[in-house]
């Protein structure tokens, strides 16, 4: 796992769902792969445990934002790949916009950006 600063749970709850959709927009992933990618690509800021990741995935699945596809890997292990659905893509686009506006606002306040203080 990649070490790094962990974000507080309040922030994680808000950011993790968008990050999950964002990564699944690139390609389908299974749970462990997704968790590892989130940790790696967020420089350790978004390390999601089971208690965060799987509820997000099941919630998205129930809402039709992602679609599971089960495959058995060569080692016989279950791989449950999650695909982003068109509805999920629309949700992602909407949340990206909101997130950008939030980041712009935080930046305007001097709270975001490189080395923001």
């Amino acid at each position: 796992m990649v070490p790094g600063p962990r974000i507080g749970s309040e922030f994680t709850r808000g950011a993790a769902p968008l990050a999950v959709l964002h990564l699944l927009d690139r390609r389908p992933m299974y749970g462990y792969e997704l968790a590892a990618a989130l940790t790696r690509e967020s420089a350790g800021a978004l390390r999601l445990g089971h208690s965060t990741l799987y509820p997000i995935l099941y919630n998205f699945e129930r809402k039709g934002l992602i679609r599971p596809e089960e495959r058995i890997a060569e080692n016989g292990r279950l791989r449950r790949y999650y695909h982003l659905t068109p509805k999920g893509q629309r949700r992602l686009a909407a949340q990206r916009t909101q997130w950008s506006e939030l980041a712009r606002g935080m930046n305007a306040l001097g709270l975001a950006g490189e080395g923001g203080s």
Partner: protein
Amino acid sequence: MITGGGGPAPDLDGLLRAAALPPELADAVRRTLRSAGLSPEERLAVARELVAHLEDGLADGLLPDELLATFGDPELAGRLIHDARSPWSVRATRIGVRVGGIAAALFVVLYAGAAARLYSGSPERPTAAATLHALAAAAEQEHRALDWVWTAETALASGDTIASAEAERHARALLDSLVDRAEPVVRLAAVLVAGELMALERRGPGGPGPARPAGPDAARARLPEIDLDALGTWLDDYLARVYAGPDAEGRLTAAGLRTVRALKGSVGSAPRALLLEPVYFAAPALRRDVARRAGRLLALAAEARERPDDPVPMDAFETELSEIASGPGPVGARYYPLALVMSRLRAALEAERVLGRPGP
């Protein structure tokens, strides 16, 4: 939703044995699933995914302690998984259990009372009233008041005169305890109780009969400070929060939301707006039926408003109730929301008569 993988499905113990996870990780999976409270099939499917995740971590060289640290609290994980899979049930179950418990208890009490009357030849059974009183007293104050409308309705419908008298006595005491409190939900409850008290007063403690001349004034006198406009604003905010919340999509279909909004648009008073709540709580398969019947009841209400000097068209309400009771399926549980719609609408009509018209 999750389904099991291919091939014969092992049980959870078999799955964990086959995975040969370290005991502490196997225990975390067990605790998560125990807390999630899923069906056996769903539990096994989730277990497969969690186990595969842990196996992948071990294969990547992570130590059990490291995996355990990233696993998180198993009980919390289980509860969140449960909520993620059935978020509607979280609130509905809580309310359903409370309402269902009261409904079941009332049904048993009233059925037993009717049977006792039948076999004893006595026209009245004080045990029904006592039990009603005990049930209401055990509930939280505002819940008690909000449910009282239905409770009193049941007492009236039972024809049990002692139960009706007890309901009226209790409604008065309840109303007296509510009118000095400022919380909107309590004020709303007070309006509903006042409406139901009117219905009880009109029938009188001895059963159906002429209205009591002092009834409307008495109920009005108990509610001197309630601002219905402010209450309506609060209700609007409340409904907006409910329907625009982050989980609204999972709780209510788009068609259901449109129905609710259309119904709300035809609702003219704050107490009346409450009748939409059961539509929200109704099971998906029932929404159309509930909305259709609620629409008919709204039409009856509109008719009643046009003829303010006529009595509330109880015969039409009774007809609706008979149709509901003779409908398919377990009546009590499936049609409870609709029964609530009816009782609240009737209470709202009474409240409107009390609060919306000048006194003599």
